[in-house]
């Protein structure tokens, strides 16, 4: 049973990361029906920006993360302005090809600037609670609450079920950002404009909404969220030029699974892909099975799409954008 709860935590963390990235895909798609393949690269750049700020400019981690997010939001604006706005009214295929081109270009630019080798965040630059343990360190227990121990290294529910502070933080962050985004889209004026654009860009324009501005804001928000996911993955794993590609493909699958264009769908899609991957790898008998965890996640996606072609939260339910 311990094992099951630990896997549940593993799945939540991975799902949260996917959800944060998937939102970026789905928001842009909801408004301009463009699959922005370069979103995975924005995620990668978010990690590299924070890494560079910490290592080359010696900024503290807490300052580097927001700066990196703002840089990425700006980068999202730039990407829209340079690559997508000029072909806004061209056939959708042109925009799709452009997106793939931007993705490949950014990957290679990152490779030229930062090199092909994977780079971890230097652990001495991280806040102490994100630090990992060495081999024979026994974590010191800070305090315990209702049988849950808060130790130096993690939050430990029982001997074999624990969650690292970083992972806990990722889940928390995913929830907070998702709720905030949901509020933004439903309650604010710009959110209303985004929903209007999602329904019909032409009609929204006729009503006096500056659609180009709305689209730009959408890119900025998506990139902002992608960047924080990038930093979190960079700290948890490592940073490399192709990291956006692999995580991006999985997140895109999550967006499709949830019903592309739908934010709630992207959140649940992300979680479902995370669960499929972790439980697929965890409960398939030992040996080769767990090597195919990504395939398992995609099989789940295909099954859902076959049953519900519009995804879990297809267009009829909920709102787009």
């Amino acid at each position, binding site marked *: 049973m311990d094992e099951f709860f*630990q896997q549940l935590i593993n799945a939540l963390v991975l799902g949260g990361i996917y959800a944060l990235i998937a939102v970026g895909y789905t928001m842009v798609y909801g408004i301009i029906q463009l699959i922005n393949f370069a979103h995975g690269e924005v995620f990668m750049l978010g990690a590299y920006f924070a890494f560079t700020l910490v290592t080359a400019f010696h900024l503290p981690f807490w300052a580097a993360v927001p700066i990196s997010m703002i840089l990425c939001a700006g980068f999202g604006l730039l990407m829209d302005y340079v690559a997508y706005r000029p072909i806004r009214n061209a056939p959708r295929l042109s925009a799709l090809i452009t997106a793939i081109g931007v993705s490949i270009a950014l990957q290679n630019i990152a490779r030229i600037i930062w090199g092909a080798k994977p780079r971890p965040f230097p652990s001495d630059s991280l806040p102490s609670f994100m630090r990992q*343990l060495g*081999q024979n360190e026994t974590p010191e227990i800070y305090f315990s609450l209702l049988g849950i121990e808060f130790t130096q290294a993690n939050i430990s529910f029982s001997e*074999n079920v624990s969650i690292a502070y970083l992972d806990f933080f990722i889940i928390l962050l995913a929830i907070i950002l998702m709720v905030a985004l949901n509020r933004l889209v439903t309650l604010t004026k710009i959110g209303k404009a985004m929903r209007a654009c999602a329904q019909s860009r032409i009609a929204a324009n006729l009503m006096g909404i500056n659609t180009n501005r709305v689209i730009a804001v959408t890119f900025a928000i998506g990139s902002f969220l992608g960047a924080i996911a990038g930093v979190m993955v960079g700290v948890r*794993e490592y940073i490399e030029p192709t990291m956006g590609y692999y995580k991006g493909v999985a997140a895109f699958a999550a967006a499709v699974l949830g019903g592309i264009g739908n934010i709630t769908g992207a959140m649940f899609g992300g979680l479902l892909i995370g669960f499929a991957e*972790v439980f697929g790898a*965890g409960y398939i008998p030992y040996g*080769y099975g767990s*090597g*195919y965890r990504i395939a398992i996640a995609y099989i789940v996606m295909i099954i859902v799409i076959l049953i519900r072609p519009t995804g879990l939260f297809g267009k009829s339910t909920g709102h787009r954008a």
Partner: protein
Amino acid sequence: MRKWLIGLLLIPIVFVLGCDSGNQVRVAVAGPFTGNAAAFGEMIKRGAELKAKEINEAGGINGRQLKLLFGDDTGTEKEAKAVATRFATDRRVLAVVGHFNSTCSIAGKPIYKENGIVELSPGSTNVDVCQGSDWTFRNLYRDDFQGAFIAKYIKTYLTEYKTVGVIFENDDYGRGLRDGFLAEAEKIDLSVVADTAYDRDTTDYTAQLTNIKAENPDMLLISGLYGQAGLIAKQARNLGITAPFFGADGIDSPEFIIIAEDAANGTYLSTPFTFRAGGDEAANVAKAFEAEFGVPPDTWAALTYDAMGMIAEAIEKTYNSDAPLAENRKAIRDHLAGLDTPEEGYTGITGLTYFDKNGDTVNKPAYVKIVKDGEFTMAENQLLDSE
């Protein structure tokens, strides 16, 4: 007017062809210069460059300058096939040093065989790499030897570790090494309590590691490359797995320690060569390497240095500038195939290399290193009486 234009266009072509027949010989180097084995690729490139530089400074091969061409296979099967096709059909290339990843060497093998050009790998250890082709060679041991070696080492010297868990990358290298280890473990009664795979495109291994933790092994064998292995080490510690790690030559890169950080400490690994075990000549090469590139060479730089030396020697002994390309390529193969006894073998900085009838090297020992305080050091106990 038209004829004049065509004539003008022909000039550069004639010029390019003219260069080829000049006094150069070309050897290709194929390796993972980008991708997730890029740290190895970099060392392979530098090892080859250093040897070529030394040869050229000493007057070249029979007065001809040795020119290297590099092909990036990114460590993937698809790119390896493209690189192999490019080199095998290049009318200027005499032989290929490469590939590194076993998957790549195997992918290139039929292409090299069909076009009749030597593939000499300085890094592929999967059992099947040299099988079924007279054109593929390697100058290091195979994974059935390495896997068995690791099992024997644990059984002989690490007796406090009774049970072992295995996590392996699902590619030719990771699987082959794991198979070799499991076979020997069964023979010598070493208990394997967990055995699970991972895919190199994923970077989250918590699901697999949670399963392994449930079996509570005393030691964890990571059969894969340094990048993923580094992450596995880190994530295992975060999940509370305290067992030490054992890796193989795939994690023999400083990058492993950079990625795993504190989690790397206490990790054992087997490797086909280490400069600490090399002689004076190896020490001199290490010094020259560091002077040239600013970093010390690793195992793969040394093996590539020797592979390049073997090819250069083969060219020196057999090259005939009047003969057609196919004949020159075949002469190199025949020369390498002739190095089949210890007396005939090639002595380089990594020791004596000679081939069996497959093109495998079976005489080289394995060394064990251990990570202490963020550095690789030789393990106290070595198990050198191979076989």
